[in-house]
């Protein structure tokens, strides 16, 4: 009998607030170590936390987006454990009274089937700092810039049955938080991190023992890590072994995972309500005012892309699920005036380039305006698609706009029928042998013989002749010779 995989996710999303959750320090990524750490972030004695209202707003936005209950009273608790990157030696988090209660999202799989994934709750908490293990000669450095960055931790029910479903769910959450503008979604900077709880069982049986693979920060790693762990668990059980409840770490470079600690070694976190932070009571009016300002959510946007732009549901999903991608597409489509062509270039060349350069759309070297400039020159026939690739390369590598690249590199397409006719005549005049062959050939073979002439004409025009016009004129002239 087949094995069934059961997966639940815990997702940490860094909230895009300007300052930290309990201090005024900046949350900007990439600053010099410890330059964004105040006395509070260092847990100096006597310092006290003051909650950042924006973090609550963002968490409530998320709750509304997943159709969840918003807790009218939420409470911060202290989760106690010692670690050098946790300055207070407790993390301020929510346990018994989280801000966001049960909710749900819908995922769509490759075959078009839809499935609802339930979300158990989502809570606010603070991020820890980072330990730096290099360059300190047997010691560790601590960078507290990240300490106190607000996080929303989203905890799903164990509703997923495959790595595909888990990745679809993770992508859906990514799409929701970026669409809401509450998280920048930069996975490579740790803005979203996934902990995956995995167990296997025979269908219909009780849940098996689960393991938790922590801190996956890309969809690819998540997919690989799940497959690896599922395989490990099945092999283990089929060999007569037992899965032990443990926390595991997956290394994306070596594609291997190892046990970090077992349940027996787990900490007793001694949670209790934080006496420095009073329970926060949220009123209905406050929630309603946030609901009114909620931006367009991915599902609604994809629907709109289908009706407004006539995109296929596949294209609508590719362009509409990520907020930055959607913004890029809509800006470029509006500027270029050709929706379909814009969509094709974004999903084709641009996505491929971004992928291989490991860049997100937000960091695309090519702006939506630049792309639109090029697309509109294809649309109005100034350049061919083939020449457009050269323009694209030019903009990607050196910047600038399409028009000046077309001008500088002389890529303008020749659509003057007189000029093309002259080139066709010249090629025909210089190709007696090929013209004879064409004349004597069987009619069915003639189309294949056009290639030679087209090639010569394009060569003569340095690739600038409008290929469609070349084809038409050439065919007419050759037929006249028959």
């Amino acid at each position, binding site marked *: 009998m087949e094995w069934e995989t059961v997966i639940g996710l815990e997702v940490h999303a860094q909230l895009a607030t300007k300052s930290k959750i309990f201090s005024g320090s900046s949350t900007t990524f990439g600053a010099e170590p410890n330059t964004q750490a105040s006395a509070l972030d260092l847990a100096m004695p*006597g310092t006290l936390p003051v909650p950042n209202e924006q973090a609550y707003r963002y968490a409530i936005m998320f709750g509304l987006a997943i159709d969840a209950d918003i807790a009218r009273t939420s409470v911060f608790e202290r989760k*106690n454990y010692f670690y050098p990157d946790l300055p207070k030696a*407790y993390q301020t988090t929510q346990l018994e009274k989280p801000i966001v209660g049960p909710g749900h999202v819908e995922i769509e799989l490759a075959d078009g089937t839809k499935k609802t994934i339930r979300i158990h709750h989502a809570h606010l908490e603070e991020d820890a700092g980072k330990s730096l293990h290099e360059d300190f000669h047997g010691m560790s450095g601590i960078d507290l810039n990240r300490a106190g960055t607000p996080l929303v931790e989203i905890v799903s029910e164990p509703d997923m049955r495959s790595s595909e479903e888990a990745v679809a769910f993770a992508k859906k959450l990514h799409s929701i938080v970026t669409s809401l503008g509450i998280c920048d979604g930069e996975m490579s900077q740790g803005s979203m991190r996934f902990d995956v709880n995995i167990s296997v069982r025979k269908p219909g049986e009780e849940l098996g023992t689960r393991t938790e693979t922590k801190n996956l920060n890309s969809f690819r790693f998540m997919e690989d890590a799940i497959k690896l762990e599922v395989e490990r668990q099945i092999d283990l059980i089929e060999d007569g072994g037992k899965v032990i409840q443990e926390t595991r770490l997956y290394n994306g470079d070596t594609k291997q995972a190892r046990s970090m600690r077992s349940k027996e070694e787990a900490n007793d976190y*001694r949670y209790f309500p934080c006496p*420095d*932070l009073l329970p926060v009571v949220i009123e209905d009016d406050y929630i309603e005012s946030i609901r009114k300002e909620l931006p367009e959510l991915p599902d609604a946007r994809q629907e709109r892309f289908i009706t407004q732009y006539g995109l296929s549901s596949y294209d609508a999903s590719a362009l509409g699920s990520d907020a930055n991608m959607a913004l890029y597409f809509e800006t470029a489509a509006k500027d270029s005036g050709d929706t379909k062509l814009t969509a094709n270039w974004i999903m084709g060349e641009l996505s491929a380039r971004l992928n291989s350069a490991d860049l997100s759309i937000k960091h695309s070297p090519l702006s939506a305006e630049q792309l639109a400039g090029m697309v509109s020159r294809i649309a109005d026939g100034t350049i061919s698609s083939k020449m457009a690739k050269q323009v694209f390369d030019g903009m990607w590598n050196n910047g600038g706009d399409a028009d000046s690249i077309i001008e500088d590199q002389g890529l303008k397409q020749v659509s003057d029928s007189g000029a093309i006719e002259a080139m066709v005549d010249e090629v025909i005049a210089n190709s007696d042998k090929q013209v004879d062959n064409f004349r004597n050939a069987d009619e069915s073979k003639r189309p294949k013989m056009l290639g030679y002439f087209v090639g010569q004409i394009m060569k003569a025009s340095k690739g600038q002749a409008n290929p469609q016009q070349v084809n038409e004129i050439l065919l007419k002239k050759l037929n006249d010779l028959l």
Partner: protein
Amino acid sequence: MNDSIMHNKTIAEIIAGLEAGEFTSVEITQHYLKRIKQLDRKYNSYITVNETSALAQAEAADQRRAKGNAPAFCGVPIAHKDIFCTNGIRTSCGSKMLDNFVPPYDATVVENFANAGAVVLGKTNMDEFAMGSSNETSFYGPVKNPWNINTVPGGSSGGSAAAIAAHLAPGATATDTGGSIRQPAALCGITGLKPTYGRVSRWGMIAFASSLDQGGPMARTAEDCALMLNVMASFDPKDSTSIDREVPDYTTNLNQSLNGLKIGIPREYFEEGLNPGTEQAVKNALAELEKQGATLVSISLPHTKLAVPAYYVIAPAEASANLSRFDGVRYGHRCEDPKDLRDMYMRTRAEGFGEEVKRRILVGAYCLSAGYYDAYYRKAQQVRRLIKQDFVDAFEKVDVIMGPTSPSPAFEFGSKGSDPVAMYLEDIYTIATNLAGLPGMSAPCGFVDNKPVGLQIIGNYFDESRMLNVAHQFQLATGWHKRSPEGLELEEAK
């Protein structure tokens, strides 16, 4: 100006003297610094004396006054309990752990006094991390009670109390988590007030038990406490538990008559364990207040007996988390040559904390552990609500509640050292008000064997004005607060 008169002045009198030009801030500051230098060897009430910065502050204050824009405490010397962070001045909290800790910021209380122009003589001794009722747990050695140097000054604000009793400061800041202002005030024969929770900012005040800690003033008179509270109390956006409520002028009602005042006398505060001499002194005080027109109403606070046990779950639980940050990583003590992280944590904390602090961290961690949380922490919180309700019910019937501050006068060093529970019972009458978040104060009301006795006045929420009014009226009619211990004269003055 005769020196011996200068250090007998109350804060109100110092302000008047500075205003009248009888003496300058530099003169009175120098006088206090000289006294501290000569006399504090005997009492050990200061951990750090700020000789240079105090004189600089005094000079600045005199200049400010000369320019005619003197704020309320301009040039008045005071001391801060060494639990309040002082920018650039070592703040030890009475612990080896913070012996080398110099904060880069001021506590809000310190800032408030700086803005009011006060001169800071130094940082006063205290039980380590405010955990103790005798000042014996200080890393810097015990403070001696100026009334009898073989006895304790009380704790944890024993340094502030003894400094005032020995006239080494006219007033000092202090903190009270379970009685740490009121009990030492009682044992040293001075006046001290713990305000309503949230009245005084906790920002920069090193946390012991966050839901119970509250800063307050200590001085020789109720009037001085009112003047100090005017400066200390503030709404502070940096403290989420600070309450946004207007700060009244606490001196306004001092002279109101007590005619018609209803004083609740809790039966439970006069049961076994109370020293008969203490009981008599308190009853005499109540009789005096009756004479002034107050009515005594017998009341019951039925959950009084549960206060100490509930407190010794909640306070250590919070402390166990609050003190976790002292891990040797970023500041404070770190052990020599740690062989790894675990070794660094363990030795740093083993070396840096004293016995009582360790005991409470262990108790607190235990109470919060998986499987014990419901039986201890959750239960204690339920008890806390019952205790609060006792007071809410009582204040339906009375204006203030009174009784003894501590069960007996100052005891000898070491006499309770081996029995932590006996020490914990020192705070049996004071702890409940912290659990309820109510204000409480202690004022001198007599002596037993030449040892001071304190009268405790508990008020309703934010009713500090009325408590100060009661204490002031009592002090106008009695002379207990004016008595000073022997041996306070400087060598040269003899």
